[in-house]
């Protein structure tokens, strides 16, 4: 977790110490980190977890782990090697309970303007091999 995010949503809880609260938004299964549970009806709050290694690295990043109780589908966006993106609207950081989205690359791209999120396959249809492969029952691509 980058220092900027830690400073925004990390919270020195009287019992748990440095920690964050995990929630997700039903629309598209976006994970949201916050100080306290998000109570609005479009969010599902999960649990509070500790921020690890926060004291061992001066001004460096802390470490967090997705709680096991997080919904499996939401969790499936993240696995070893996944690039994690943190995103927030200004108003999210300025409210009493600051919050930040945690997004995988595909989730982030979905939120970008359509021109940037258009999925483009490798094939332009002119190559025999690629074309024939794309016309067979297949594993991917998804639309």
């Amino acid at each position: 977790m980058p220092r900027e995010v830690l400073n925004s949503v990390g919270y020195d809880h009287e019992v748990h110490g440095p920690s964050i609260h995990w929630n997700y938004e039903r629309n598209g299964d976006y994970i949201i980190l916050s100080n306290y549970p998000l109570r609005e009806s479009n969010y599902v709050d999960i649990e509070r977890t500790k921020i690890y290694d926060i004291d061992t690295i001066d001004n460096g990043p802390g470490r967090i782990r997705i709680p096991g109780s997080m919904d499996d589908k939401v969790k499936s966006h993240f696995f070893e090697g996944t690039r994690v993106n943190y995103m927030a609207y200004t108003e999210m950081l300025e409210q009493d309970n600051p919050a930040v989205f945690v997004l995988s690359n595909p989730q982030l791209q979905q939120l970008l303007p359509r021109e940037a999120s258009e999925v483009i396959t490798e094939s332009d249809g002119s190559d025999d091999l690629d074309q024939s492969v794309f016309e067979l029952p297949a594993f991917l691509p998804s639309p």
Partner: protein
Amino acid sequence: MKLVSVAGTLNRPWKLVRSELNQLLGSPSTSDSDSIYTWTTTIIRLYTLVIVIDKSTSDVTLNIRTSVPYTLIGISATLLILVARILHLSQYFLLFMMVLCLGIVVFPLVPSLLNSFQGYFPVQGLMDTNEIQVTPVVLIPLVGWLTGLVYAAGTGPFRIPILVMAVFMFAIFAYHTVPQMMELRRQWPIGAVSVLASLPLFLVAGGLALLYEFATRLPLNTFLFATSALVGGMIFLSISYLKLTRQFVLVAQSQTAPNEPIESLLARIAWGGLLVLQNICLLAFTLFFLSDRWVFDAWPTSVKPVRNQIAQAGLPLPSILAWSLILVVSIPLLMLFILWTWHIYTTIRSQIALSNDTTHLNIDTETPIRIIDSSSLHASARTSLQGKQSILITKGLLELLDDDELQAVIAHESYHLKNRDPLRSFLASLLGLLVGGKSTGMIIFDFPRIERQADLYAADQVGTQTVIRTLRRIEAQETRYAAEKVFSDNSPELMGSDHYLGVIGLAWDLYNTLFGNLILANAHSSVDERVQYILASERT
């Protein structure tokens, strides 16, 4: 009165949605529970758009309403057509009432067609559409219009195509207005493709009937004028058909409906059967016009009067001119035939290429694995012309996945081979001409259902988490490729089929729609849907 209703779920964060709608439509009203938000806007006093979002469930509903007495007008116009039919009133009166009925049918669709509502299309981009319902009342003026059409034009040689078209149009509208059948699926393009595939046959059947009518009933001068207009009209309609296909491709590529399979075998057979029957009827009708029997063993009856008229006009080579006219009128059907021939040729050629240009992967599997030298992320099941089965994997995919994930892909493809899916696909290709395109023939197979079963088979073989991880890894990599391409290269060929300009580009879109991979590409659900389905199956 509610004319059209679109229902779905939000696919963007609520704060983003609210912010965008506030900018477009102003402040919403909210319910007492503070979870339901309603935006309202009007256009030329005829229509009102109401957008209702329940943020606690993410449900979205778009309603188009009107204060016009729609039902009353529809019933009145339909009754007047029936009265005109019984009392044999003026043809002009009948024509006027038909135009009125058609206007009433189209009325609910105008806002969508013209993008009239500020906010209508932006909202559709923020949601996954699950249902669209046009008011069932639209069937009343439709009956009026079809009755008028059959009465006015469905005589003599026009009777069969007009009746076929009337039944087919009514079936399509009924499907789109009966609420319990209106759950949209990502494979809905199949239905639209089928309609598009039938249009060439409709055009040719109607054109030949008109030519026959002109030759047998019109005086010489009028015949020459009417025939010239028919030729011009047919060229115009052919180009319009191609452009319509392009629009369809663009819409099909951008739509986000969920991908529920059509579980009912009866529904699949009924839908596919209707389309096959319609195309066979039209094809038989076309052949009937070119011969006086069901086989070509005599001089075509539609050519003879046309030739006689041309000869009377003193034009040279009347037989050649008559056949040329019929060829021009048959352009849409010829186009379909050429595309089908090209499709069969490229299918066989690519089968040979796959045999020669791939290398074996040395791992211990039941089915031979062949590697394609391509950086794209793809794997597929293949049965060669000799009946040999193999699994094809691109080098890009091989380099991306670890061993377990590779086994997940192999298991998925193995299911396709066990299920003989490549053979089904090839069969649909062969029958493509008869039923107006390979895509039409694939309805009955219901590939979205097959893809789900293949995912479950893979999960059973290698484990749920492995399959999910594989899907997510490929999704992430494709996202990366897409982003890199968009941000690093603005060349036009990256933006879809638009890079093929002019007639070739239009023909390419038609080919892709009728014989290309449009249906197979839409057979796969989004990765989110696949993950959800696999997890749900595991829980049960």
